[in-house]
């Protein structure tokens, strides 16, 4: 026992003298697994070259809302990289682990990469789906997760709403009607984005899957580019999945500097390139130009511009008795 203790002491002394072992926890949402696997390796290499310290990054993935809850309930995240600002807002408000103005601390609304909602259809596009209008036609079956439980589905709902407003001279009643008709065509409301992908791809339910752009590309890559096609609508939403340092937790772990660097490095050319390779739209224009073939041009609206921010949008559309609930009321 004594020798064991001495060994532990000695080794920790050696470690203190030489390279430090830093442990960082990144709590993220569902579809970013592949992205952060690649990014973490790149960052560890960069940090080792810069400071000589080893950094080991653990990841946790799950539905965005659930992940935020875990952090509020004490999951010790140094950084969070979630699907929507509303979920990080919740961490700021409820657990007070970071300041309310967290989104102003990093460039571009603290979102180093963006994404959007596109359509995935079966080979040859048998139902001729080109735009949102085609989704509300009778006989078209649409697969999308439940906006109440899925961050991605909330972006989808808002994209459809924005399209309906644009098409109908900003007539809310008609947008409401459009949304109701759209969700009448949804036979299954899965609880998360991955669930919907499984329903569409493996159970062969539905004519079109409304999906994150990166998830659609990934599904094609995974299940065969000869089976599915991606259709880009004329208008969609600029989905901004934000990132933030969880100040209080990072400070307690002594990880403030490395956590900050971890997020800042996402904006570097290398970070941007990894994002683009994983089908997230990079902010850096040079990298974006290099990967332009992957990202179709379309009109993108933002939550802040079109809906007055997430807090407002959440209450109006997805709260109890909100617009989404009322679609399902008889």
């Amino acid at each position, binding site marked *: 026992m004594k020798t064991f203790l001495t060994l532990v002491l000695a080794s920790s002394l050696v470690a203190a003298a030489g390279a430090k072992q830093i442990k960082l926890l990144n709590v993220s949402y569902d579809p970013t697994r592949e992205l952060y696997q690649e990014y973490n390796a790149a960052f560890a290499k960069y940090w080792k070259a810069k400071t000589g310290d080893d950094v080991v990054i653990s990841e946790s993935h799950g539905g965005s809302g659930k992940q935020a809850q875990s952090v509020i309930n004490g999951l010790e995240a140094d950084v969070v990289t979630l699907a929507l600002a509303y979920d990080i807002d919740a961490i700021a408000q409820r657990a007070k682990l970071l300041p309310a103005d967290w989104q102003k601390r990093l460039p571009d609304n603290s979102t180093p990469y963006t994404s959007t909602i596109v359509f995935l259809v079966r080979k040859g596009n048998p139902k001729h789906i080109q735009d949102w209008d085609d989704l509300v036609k009778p006989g078209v079956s649409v697969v999308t997760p439940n906006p109440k439980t899925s961050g991605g589905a909330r972006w989808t709902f808002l994209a459809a709403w924005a399209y309906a407003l644009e098409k109908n001279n900003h007539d809310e009643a008609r947008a409401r009607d459009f949304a109701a008709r759209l969700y009448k065509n949804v*036979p*299954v409301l899965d609880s998360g984005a991955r669930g919907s992908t499984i329903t569409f791809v493996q159970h062969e339910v539905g004519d079109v899957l409304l999906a994150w752009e990166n998830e659609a590309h990934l599904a094609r890559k995974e299940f065969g580019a000869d089976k599915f096609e991606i259709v880009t609508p004329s208008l969609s939403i600029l989905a901004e999945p934000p990132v933030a340092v969880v100040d209080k937790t990072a400070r307690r772990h002594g990880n403030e500097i490395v956590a900050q660097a971890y997020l800042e490095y996402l904006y570097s050319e290398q970070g941007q390139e990894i994002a683009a390779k994983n089908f997230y739209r990079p902010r850096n224009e040079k990298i974006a130009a290099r990967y332009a073939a992957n990202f179709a041009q379309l009109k993108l609206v933002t939550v802040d511009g079109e809906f007055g921010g997430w807090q407002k949008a959440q209450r109006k559309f997805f709260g109890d008795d909100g617009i989404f609930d009322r679609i399902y009321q008889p």
Partner: protein
Amino acid sequence: MLRLRQRGVLPGFRLTLGCALLYLSLIVLIPLAAAFVKASELSPWQFWHDLTTPRALAAFRLSFGAAFLAALANLFFGLLVAWVLARYQFWGKRVMDALVDLPFALPTLVAGITLATLFAQNGWIGRWLAPLGIKVVYTQLGVFVALLFIGLPFVVRTVQPVLEDLDLELEEAAASLGANRRQTFRRVILPSVRPALLTGFALAFARGVGEYGSVIFISSNLPGKTEIVPLLIVTKLEQFDYAGATAIAVVMLLASFALLLLINLFQWRSSRYHARI
């Protein structure tokens, strides 16, 4: 005077009772109490409003209804399986015995995905049902099927040991006294296994009401149609509406507890009745 203590052969009544109470409190009572405290954050009006929305009512109907029907079906088929396992020797019996426990061991999520894949329109079973016009996946029937799967071992595992312990001589005696097979079953076998059957039913039912993982994959989760209560709770949690979520949970708990209590009372009465004769 209330007699708390009964002298037994072995000492240690106070110690064991104390430990049992402490354990129950830590594991069951305190978390439940916390749920009640959280739910009490709502005003009575809000509480009532949350619970009586058409959506919540539909979910309650589906969850309790499907769990009840599935437990009922498992009552019959579980008894059948237990009977076969307890009474007959045949090749592959050990394997069959182990299979029964599978729903216990399998993560419910995996069970849900497997069932959904099997019963999907292009699945092994679903493709034969589709021409008959039977849709399982994404319907209320799917919820029932998932709960069947989840509930089976509860009935089998409670009934099987009782059947195994059942004295064959009792049946022989009944037969020699002139009882026919049906009478033997109804008058001799059934009363002996009834308490175990009821327990199995109650367990399967309670489990079915709370089941989440397997159901959400096979159900279409449409509000008012195929949405189960646990999903409603998860939905509320996603909105950070903790009080609203626990309000639903509390009602679910109370309803389940009342039913379990009822079944226990029933069981107690029937066993007392038997003790008398």
